[in-house]
């Protein structure tokens, strides 16, 4: 469905993505794991074309057989990719309803939008209760649901979520993941960036592990779960010391 | 080291570049006399710019008639944006690079003050500043000749007219907060003191203000039956419109600055009818042969221009200079022209009679009083009148 081939993304002089490639199959939940600054969010932004105009600098992105790496964000949204950014990014001074309406910005069918709003409100009863409140006043979990609901309004075929569990309590996290799973069962493919490794691995069908702008592991969750590297990565249970060790060559080059 | 060498060479070259330096060029030669004027062509004061363009008409007429004793007049206009610093820059450039014999007109009191000393130092004649302030002519600056009647005199005459002819009981004064408005106020007050009366209200406006409701309400509250205003056209327009809005309808009297009836009547939307103003020139629509000639010339040379008071004033300010140049004869020199100017007696073009003597360089003390009639026609209420209270004539 989505195939990313060898993309490179630069922030000014810094290469954030070192040529990554992966593919996502229709109907899957795919997790993108990795530490802070590994390039997960950059990957999603590159796909959505939210970075500078000339990014990605190299490589191709295809969605349902169409090249989208030079399309406008708006067209990408129309094609059926939806993105829930990290930190939710709801419109704080818009009401919940208005936020949801904005999700359908690219659509023209009034009746369809109306029905979909009904559907979203049914799916997230809490939003229905608060439909006329300003989104900025919602709690973190509610905002996350709003962001997901908003993203669904464009009837996406692929939904990309950036750290949906960020700052949420375990209970809420579970709820969010249940929702994600439900959405997936309704036929939406999901690409998920997550720090909550256990959760991500539990719900996903496939997972990539990123580090320093590269994909270093790609495997089924069952395999990754038992992997020592993953454990080390997240808990620092050191199994080996790095090659460089504690030795360091300090060049004592002086100016005078 | 190489760089140093190159640098030294360039330095030497820079020193060797021969460049003209030195004093002001003479203002005339066998073929032409150079005359110049500064005036704002852009910026907030740009409406006054037509004065400088008006003078051009007179010079074109003279040139078409063969010039003055074989010399054509070359005329320069420079835009100073109503900024004294820029005036000084353009005047210096004109005097020292182009070589200017005389300046005529010149809007803005401050600009004139900034260059007055410089022109005297360089012995450049300056005739007819388009502003009347006492500092120009008292004490006498030997190269500066004023034509414009002093605002004090004008205000005094107008006040007298209001009291004696209009039988005004309560007079209020509405003025612009600058040299122009303040000298008007002084003239009015002097006359009032003489008549043992007091102004019922004096209200001021900053030149740029666009909302005059509070000023008008104050004037209304004072119950004045005559309001004398010493403001610019924009302020006057807003004032009249606002006054009409609040139902305040006194007899308006104003300085000659606002004597362009067609313009004023148009921009006030017809409210100008019935306003009495001072005038320092014949009515623009009058049919004296001289005025007719100028009007025809303006149509021919500058069809874009509107024949208005400011434009006419440009001609008026230049007339005495041309007269003096003619009289000075073919052997032209600054001294010769000065001599003619200093002995000018009751010269009259389209403006007031002008008289200069070596001791008094304020050429005119008379104004006419006119009234805006229907269809912006000029009704002359009172012919050239002098201010018998004028203090400067007694000083001598």
């Amino acid at each position: 469905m989505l195939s990313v081939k060898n993309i490179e993304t630069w922030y000014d002089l810094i290469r954030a993505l070192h040529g990554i490639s992966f593919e996502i199959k229709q109907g899957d939940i795919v997790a993108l794991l990795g530490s802070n600054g590994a390039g997960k969010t950059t990957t999603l932004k590159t796909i959505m074309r939210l970075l500078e105009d000339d990014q990605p600098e190299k490589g191709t992105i295809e969605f349902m057989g169409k090249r989208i790496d030079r399309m406008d964000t708006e067209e990408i949204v129309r094609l059926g990719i939806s993105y829930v950014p990290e930190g939710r990014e709801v419109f704080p001074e818009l009401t919940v309803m208005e936020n949801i309406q904005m999700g359908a910005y690219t659509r023209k069918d009034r009746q369809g939008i109306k029905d979909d709003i009904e559907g979203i409100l049914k799916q997230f009863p809490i939003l229905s209760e608060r439909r006329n409140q300003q989104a900025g006043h919602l709690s973190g979990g509610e905002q996350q649901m709003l962001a997901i609901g908003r993203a669904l309004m464009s009837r996406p075929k692929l939904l990309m979520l950036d750290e949906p569990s960020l700052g949420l309590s375990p209970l809420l996290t579970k709820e969010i993941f249940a929702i994600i799973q439900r959405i997936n069962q309704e036929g939406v493919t999901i690409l998920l960036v997550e720090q909550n490794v256990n959760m991500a691995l539990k719900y996903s069908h496939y997972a990539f592990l990123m580090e320093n702008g590269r994909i270093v592991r790609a495997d089924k969750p069952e395999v990754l779960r038992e992997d020592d590297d993953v454990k080390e990565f997240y808990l620092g249970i050191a199994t080996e010391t790095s090659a460089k060790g504690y030795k360091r060559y300090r060049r004592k080059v002086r100016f005078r | 080291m190489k760089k140093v060498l190159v640098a030294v060479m360039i330095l030497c070259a820079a020193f060797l570049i021969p460049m003209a330096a030195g004093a002001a060029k003479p203002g005339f030669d066998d073929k032409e006399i150079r005359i110049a004027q500064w005036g704002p062509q852009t910026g907030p004061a740009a409406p006054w710019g037509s004065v400088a363009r008006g003078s051009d008409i007179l010079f074109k007429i003279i040139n078409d008639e063969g010039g003055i004793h074989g010399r054509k007049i070359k005329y320069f206009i420079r835009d100073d944006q109503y900024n004294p610093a820029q005036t000084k820059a353009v005047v210096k450039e004109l005097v020292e690079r182009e070589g200017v014999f005389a300046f005529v007109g010149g809007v803005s009191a401050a600009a004139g003050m900034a260059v007055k000393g410089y022109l005297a130092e360089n012995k450049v004649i300056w005739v007819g500043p388009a502003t009347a302030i006492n500092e120009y002519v008292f004490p006498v600056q030997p190269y500066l000749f004023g034509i414009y009647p002093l605002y004090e005199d004008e205000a005094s005459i107008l006040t007298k007219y209001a009291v004696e002819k209009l039988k005004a009981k309560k007079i209020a004064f509405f003025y612009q907060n600058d040299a122009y408005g303040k000298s008007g106020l002084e003239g009015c007050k002097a006359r009032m003191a003489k008549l043992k009366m007091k102004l019922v209200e004096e209200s001021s406006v900053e030149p740029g203000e666009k909302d005059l409701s509070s000023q008008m309400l104050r004037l209304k509250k004072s119950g004045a039956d005559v309001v004398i205003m010493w403001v610019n056209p924009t302020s006057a327009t807003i004032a009249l419109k606002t006054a009409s809005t609040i139902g305040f309808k006194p007899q308006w009297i104003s300085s000659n600055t606002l004597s362009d009836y067609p313009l004023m009547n148009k921009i006030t939307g017809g409210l100008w009818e019935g306003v009495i103003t001072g005038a320092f020139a014949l009515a623009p629509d009058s049919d004296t042969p001289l005025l007719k000639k100028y009007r025809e010339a303006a149509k021919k040379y500058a069809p874009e221009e509107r024949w208005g008071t400011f434009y006419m004033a440009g001609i008026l300010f230049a007339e005495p200079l041309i007269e003096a140049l003619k009289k000075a004869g073919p052997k032209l020199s600054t001294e010769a022209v000065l001599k003619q100017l200093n002995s000018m007696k009751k010269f009259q073009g389209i403006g007031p009679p002008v008289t200069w003597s070596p001791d008094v360089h304020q050429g005119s003390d008379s104004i006419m009083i006119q009234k805006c009639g229907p269809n912006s026609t000029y009704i002359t209420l009172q012919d050239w009148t002098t201010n018998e209270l004028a203090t400067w004539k007694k000083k001598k």
Partner: protein
Amino acid sequence: MAHFKVEHLSIAFGGIRAVNDVSFEIEHNKIFSIIGPNGSGKTTIFNMISGIYKPNEGEVVLENENLVGLRPDTIARKGVARTFQNIQLFGNATVMDNLMLGRHIHMKTGIVSGACMWGKRSRAAREEIRHREVIEHIIDFLDLQSLRDQFVSNLPYGKRKLVELGRALALEPKVLLLDEPSAGMNTEEKDDLRIWIKDIQEDYKVTILLIEHDMNMVMGISDRILAINQGVKIIEGTPQEVQKHPDVVAAYLGEED
């Protein structure tokens, strides 16, 4: 008496308790790490220590002096320096100038003496030279020689992190707060950083507070670790204790059910 301690620190933003009753103590010249998932309130604690946020409750005590309520610049003068999670350098200045700003509180040059810096012997120049020597040590220490005159905005991410660390060091702090110093660095740089932090501890004799996600690093260099989640303290202890604590495992890997 502990060198540096935080007592019952709490803050709420619009009703949400970002940090709730967190206390800890640090011995002099020790490395103390704070770990926890994103959004758990670690940076907020730093912001309260350095005076950017005013805590609703609690105390921050450095050498028996309460820092709460002081302005950030006064707190800096008391000897607290920090780095930021998403680098806050002065982008339009050179590395040298950035580092020199770290010396700000140790310098005295005012307007007049600064403007009158005529020649090498003027007061401003002498002071300037003296402090540049100090900075040169830091440049040596962090291997920044080749970058000293570069503009910060042209540097790669990892180098900027180092410059920020250098700037904090230049302040000669008693307590150094490092907010995710290794984020965005590659493995090699991380290894270097780890050693540098150790060196800083030894050479500069400062107390170091560290927020870090790289567990290798945290476990390798920390003397003690505080784990928080949702603004609440989970456990404080040695790396081994913390590592094994079930709540920490849960917070990081997520609940298993």
